């Protein structure tokens, strides 16, 4: 179990009552996201599809590395790790 901070992107903050960061104790990225869902119901379906796989328009990073390069949802977490959820954002505002 490692103390981990999950960075919530602005477009998903309506699902965390506005919180930009959520702290969990987890061993892997998958566990951390499950705990996040337990705390803020409905957020996980924005990140994972119905088969539990990462959606194509969302990336998850641990530190500065994409979890795709770290073993996906099984990627392990070290104490103090920061997970960033980064969805595609179109906005440029014409």
């Amino acid at each position, binding site marked *: 179990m490692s103390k981990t901070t999950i960075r919530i*992107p*602005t*477009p998903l903050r*309506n699902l965390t009552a506005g919180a*930009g960061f959520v702290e969990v104790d987890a061993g892997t990225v998958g566990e951390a996201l499950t705990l996040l869902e337990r705390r803020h119901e409905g957020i996980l379906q*924005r990140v994972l599809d119905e088969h539990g796989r990462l*959606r*194509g*328009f969302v*990336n998850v*990073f641990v530190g*500065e*590395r*994409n979890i*795709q*390069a770290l073993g996906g949802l099984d990627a392990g977490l070290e104490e103090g790790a920061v997970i*960033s959820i*980064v*969805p*595609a*954002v*179109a*906005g*440029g*505002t*014409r």
Partner: protein
Amino acid sequence: MSASQKRLAALRESVGEVDPLEALELQQRGARLIDVREPDEVAAGSPEGALRIVRGFLELRIEQAVADTETPLLVLCAGGARSLFAADDLERLGYTDVRSVAGGFREWKNAGLPVEVPRTLDAEQRERYGRHLSVPEVGEEGQLRLLDSKVLLIGAGGLGSPTALYLAAAGVGTLGIVDDDVVDRSNLQRQILHTDARVGRSKVASARETLLALNPSLDVRGHETRLDRHNVEEVFGGYDVIVDGTDNFPTRYLINDACVKLQKPNVHGSIFRFEGQVTVFWPSREADPGPCYRCLYPEPPPAELAPSCADAGVLGVLPGVIGVMQAVETIKLLLGIGEPLVGKLLQYDALQAEFYSLRVERDPGCAYCGSEHFPGYVDYAQSCAAPVAVP
């Protein structure tokens, strides 16, 4: 004999001279010929292939131009006097093989040796870009390169406004702007290219007016059209760098796919409320190619999962931060200096006052940049009746 004549005679002994023909032969064998005359003298002609460093800045700029102190150097001025003093200074700096060209440019020309008229900045440009000229990484050569560059901005909106203003100020010679919209009063909270008096007018025309008021010598080309699969390649054709400041997923994927196909760097910025991100997608980069947008996000989100239109909105200053960073990256690409933001997504969280960067890897299986065969353009439906952020 005057003091300066005595000194020159001594330098002729200690430094050594070569005649112009000898200098040309040495130049062809790898010696660097340095023309130390003033810009107005050089403007009328200078030996072909010479380095041109004005005498007053010689000691300050020579190391940047010739790093190896063992490189043979040949110094040339108008008649062969100033070059003796200059050669002496170069020896004191540690250059081991320095000689002065006897008779200078006058004798070089009389001997019928190759001369070129170098492109130089005119007096007005010298004044306007003076602060660039003092930066060794830009200098006259870099400024000329910016003036020759062609950059296309997609969107004359929140991101495009600051990008366009700074690129115009920097002297990027040709700026193309794609937008089919008209100025709305609600744009003015962030779109600083436009003015209240121009509400209802075409954004491209308004942008053009602002940019030419700032820098009248630029070529500002308006593309008053909506990009689609039929016109995208024609519009992108002549430009060196594409700057994506658009507001919707279908256009972002279209820009990406065209940039991959046409091998152009894509300077990408996007914003949402208090957050922004910027990166450079450049899979065709020769050294160390980077990812494309689809390596990061293979497909756009379906309508029901895209951030809802009701959530839209942005702090007006935020596109300023991100758009200016896009301008910085564009200028770095044009000058070929520094480390471009390739393979790195720079995130800015205004509320936390935090920048952090994420590594973006190239996907070898990417259907666009990872394949020899271009899969074609895709027409995505707008994921939101109005764009995701405030139109």
